[in-house]
């Protein structure tokens, strides 16, 4: 674990960082004096979510559910909440983010902790296996009873991390009275009053980029901010490089259309759901995102940057720190290509040029 108190132009904050869930966990508090308590709460929450949801642990609850596939199993309230969240996200994204991709991602070679996957060449198995679909999962959220059909493997990785961030930061703010930020591998959640000017979040292709090295920095004051991308968590399957965001319809890694999608939303769960779905949606993402009204920033495979829903342009002048919303169409100058939304057809178009226009 590393710990420090960061001095920002406006104030001092408490900050702790440690490895967890195969990535990095960060907790920050406006009041540096409560950072130890905040860190302890985050540790508790991560231990609990890992014990409930990890498909890499033989002693996890979800592993037990898989062993008893076909039977109705009584589970903990936390696993019940995690599955319920995953099912809601699946419904809300029209199945783009589906927890039943577990078998598909295992077939691709992501069958153990990513630290062990990163440097291995996974064998090629039979063709990709489409996900059976979230609707086959039976959950009674009142009595915490769960039934997973035989042959179906749940992968809660797409939502459990964001859920843990939301749960932890709420607990921290309630217990300490301090505004707080929790970041789990790029999934950021806020609670309580932010520091003056808001929490400054760097946007980078990989979440383990040092905050000081992030070229794009935005301020947020509430809710959550999540980023999903295809460049960071990749490995070789045979001679082919694959990544961890699975298209449930094909059972294969989603098409490389967007390199990074960042979304701000009322919660980290919702932000993560939309950013992950956008990767899966690919070419249709702009149309789908524009109807949701969420602030988004998308980086195409060719480097084109598109912003939606009031997300500030990368080169915009910093505001006075009081925040507020940006409305209407935004423009982004790029050196690569232009992405526009065709208002009539709702389809994304690309052409060479210097300006990308996005519709909020």
């Amino acid at each position: 674990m590393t710990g420090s108190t960061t001095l920002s132009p406006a104030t001092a904050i408490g900050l702790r960082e440690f490895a967890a869930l195969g990535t990095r966990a960060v907790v920050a508090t406006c009041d540096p004096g409560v950072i130890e308590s905040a860190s302890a709460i985050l540790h508790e929450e991560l231990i609990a979510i890992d014990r409930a949801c990890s498909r890499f642990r033989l002693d996890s609850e979800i592993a037990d559910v898989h062993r008893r596939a076909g039977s109705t199993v009584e589970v903990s309230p936390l696993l019940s909440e995690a599955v319920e969240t995953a099912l809601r996200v699946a419904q809300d994204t029209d199945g783009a983010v589906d927890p039943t991709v577990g078998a598909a991602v295992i077939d691709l070679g992501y069958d153990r902790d990513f630290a062990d996957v990163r440097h291995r060449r996974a064998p090629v198995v039979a063709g990709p296996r489409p996900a059976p679909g979230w609707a086959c999962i039976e959950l009674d959220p009142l009595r915490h009873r769960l039934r997973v059909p035989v042959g179906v493997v749940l992968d809660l990785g797409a939502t459990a991390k964001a859920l843990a961030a939301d749960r932890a930061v709420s607990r921290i703010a309630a217990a300490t009275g301090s505004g707080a930020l929790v970041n789990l591998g790029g999934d950021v959640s806020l609670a309580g009053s932010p520091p003056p000017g808001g929490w400054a979040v760097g946007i980078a292709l990989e979440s383990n980029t040092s905050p000081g090295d992030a070229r794009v920095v935005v301020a947020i004051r509430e809710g959550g901010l999540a980023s999903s991308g295809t460049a960071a968590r990749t490995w070789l399957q045979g001679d082919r490089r694959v990544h961890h965001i699975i298209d449930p319809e094909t059972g294969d890694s989603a098409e490389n259309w967007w390199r990074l999608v960042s979304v701000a939303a009322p919660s980290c769960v919702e932000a993560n759901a939309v950013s992950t779905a956008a990767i899966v949606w690919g070419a249709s993402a702009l149309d789908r995102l524009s109807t949701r009204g969420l602030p988004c920033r998308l980086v195409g495979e060719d480097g084109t940057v598109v912003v939606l829903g009031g997300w500030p342009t990368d080169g915009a002048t910093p505001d006075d720190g009081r925040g507020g919303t940006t409305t209407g169409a935004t423009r982004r100058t790029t050196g690569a290509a232009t992405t526009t939304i065709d208002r009539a057809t709702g389809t994304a178009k690309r052409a060479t040029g210097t300006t990308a226009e996005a519709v909020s």
Partner: protein
Amino acid sequence: MTSQGAGEGGWNLGRRSLARRIRLTTAAIVMVAILGTAGIGTVVAAEIPGTTAAPVATSKTGTGSTAPTTTSQSATTTSGATSTATSNSNSNSMATTKAPTTTSRPADTTSGATG
């Protein structure tokens, strides 16, 4: 993918008998009628006694579009995550979160693809 249960208001409708579906639907219609008469204008849900199914919910909010289906509010937790997901399960709803703004401050943390 299967479409089992989709659009019918719950996660575990797939194995329900036709009779149970009818009972649930009837109960939900009665509840909607009562609440509608009472003028309740927020998302509401009713648990159907004696069943393990997630009940049907309805909404009179928004622009009159089809209400989202959701599980009983008594089933959801108090975490912001779940309640937010519920309130945004209607794709027609618009987020109210403030958009990020640019800042000259150094970043406190980084958001990117999980490494």
